[in-house]
């Protein structure tokens, strides 16, 4: 650590003859839990793109960093740490993707969407979520035993719900699920990932034309009539917003549902407790979010001025990665962090990030997870894995998850 700090004083472009830093990300773990948190609070790591970044692992430091105006989330900012090679930034393709923007642009787009996803509005959506969940469980049981919980339940539920909210026809799910899978898999070459994103953009452009001509009661129609028609946002920006919501809206929750079912099945006593006392679902979901931290590769940022994280100096132009999965296993905050314990009170987890970019869709994700897991555990009390846990295959993607989860009931 000390050695690295001294090297840093030489400036941000660190050509070192000393031991090469550890590679990041490490190979994925063989189970539902993240890799053990690195020992160092902050250390230099080497990214697959050949650049280096500071890996920040403590709960306090991760919170401070993600809340600090000294760091930018703008991936066009000099020094921004990228995990995989990407084609040069292109304004048409990055329009509206406010997850990688700073204030004031970020604030402008986020405020346009915040009330759509707030808790109050999710409450009114809950009957529809429940109906979707029950319908998916019926199709799971109709498929015959064993059946794949991912295909019949974990993936369709959030896909149907985000389609309903956005006004995207669910009938097109095979297309957009396929493209977002390609986009998010680490193994996809950059050109192919870009082609997948372009396919989705072209699809959404056509959808926007339809909504402009015949607005419905959905988010894309509202944005088209209230923001696009008024000139507040451009067509490319509306495409970007829709793309971000469509992908973030189904991939994340789908992976959480699949992994959560696996973890609950691996903790039968806590599963029984939850079944006997459905009021435990809120705490269970928070603990699952902490324990699984599906955004495994952490959140990238770049320092825009010389600053300090914890007691560590970071120079302007240096990249940092806030490792959420390490922060969520910080023993100072979560005692016996490696244990799954739905009674621990996990509310201070950072699975949704922290700072002004903290997940916009978290009220939706929570409603979906609570209803999906409550109905699954109540309606299928004999749910069991149909394979040995060691045979479960994981998805090596930007968002961690299981590929398939064969179950019986």
């Amino acid at each position: 650590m000390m050695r690295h700090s001294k090297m840093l004083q030489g400036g941000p472009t660190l050509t070192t003859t000393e031991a090469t830093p550890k590679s990041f990300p490490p190979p994925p773990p063989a189970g539902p839990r993240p890799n053990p948190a690195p020992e160092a609070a902050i250390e230099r790591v080497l990214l697959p793109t050949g650049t280096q970044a500071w890996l920040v692992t403590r709960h306090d430091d991760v919170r401070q960093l993600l809340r600090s105006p000294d760091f930018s989330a703008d991936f066009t900012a000099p020094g921004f740490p990228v995990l995989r090679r990407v084609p040069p930034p292109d304004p048409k393709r990055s329009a509206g993707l406010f997850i990688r923007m700073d204030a004031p642009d970020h604030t402008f787009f986020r405020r346009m969407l915040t009330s759509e996803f707030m808790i109050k509005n999710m409450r009114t959506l809950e009957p529809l979520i429940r109906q979707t969940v029950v319908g998916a469980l019926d199709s799971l049981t109709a498929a015959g035993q064993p059946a794949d919980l991912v295909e019949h339940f974990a993936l369709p539920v959030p896909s149907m719900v985000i389609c309903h909210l956005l006004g995207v026809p669910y009938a097109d799910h095979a297309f957009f699920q396929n493209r977002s899978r390609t986009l998010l898999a680490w193994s996809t070459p950059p050109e192919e990932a870009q082609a997948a994103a372009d396919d989705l953009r072209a699809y959404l452009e056509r959808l926007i034309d339809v909504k402009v001509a015949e607005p419905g009661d959905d988010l894309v129609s509202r944005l088209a009539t209230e923001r696009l028609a008024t000139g507040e946002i451009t067509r490319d920006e509306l495409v970007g917003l829709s793309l971000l919501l469509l992908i973030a809206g189904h991939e994340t929750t789908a992976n959480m549902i699949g992994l959560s079912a696996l973890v609950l099945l691996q903790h039968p006593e806590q599963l029984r407790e939850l079944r006997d006392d459905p009021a435990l679902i809120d705490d269970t979901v928070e603990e699952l979010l902490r324990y699984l931290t599906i955004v495994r590769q952490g959140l990238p940022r770049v320092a825009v001025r010389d600053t300090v994280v914890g007691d560590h100096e970071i120079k302007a132009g240096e990249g940092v990665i806030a490792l959420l999965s390490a922060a969520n296993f910080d023993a100072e905050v979560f005692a016996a962090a490696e244990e799954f314990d739905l009674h621990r009170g996990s509310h201070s987890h950072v699975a949704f990030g922290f700072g002004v970019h903290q997940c916009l869709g978290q009220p939706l994700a929570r409603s979906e997870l609570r209803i999906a897991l409550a109905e699954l555990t109540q309606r299928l009390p004999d749910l069991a894995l149909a394979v040995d846990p060691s045979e479960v295959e994981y998805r090596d993607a930007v968002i961690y998850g299981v590929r398939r989860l064969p179950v019986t009931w």
Partner: protein
Amino acid sequence: MSALRIAVDRDACCGSGNCVMTVPQVFDQDEELGLVVLLDPEPPAERHAAVRQAAHICPAGAIDLTES
């Protein structure tokens, strides 16, 4: 009895809703922008623990507490 006075900063708020989830009796979000609305700036003692938790998990640092 200790008193707890809350101030919120709507300019800093990013509408995460964490405060509303934690203490709906004290925090709300407006319909238009989804930003924090303070319902009760000096909540009774039985809500203090929850209010402190809400301030702690507010991602934007938009909730300020003064204890006296």
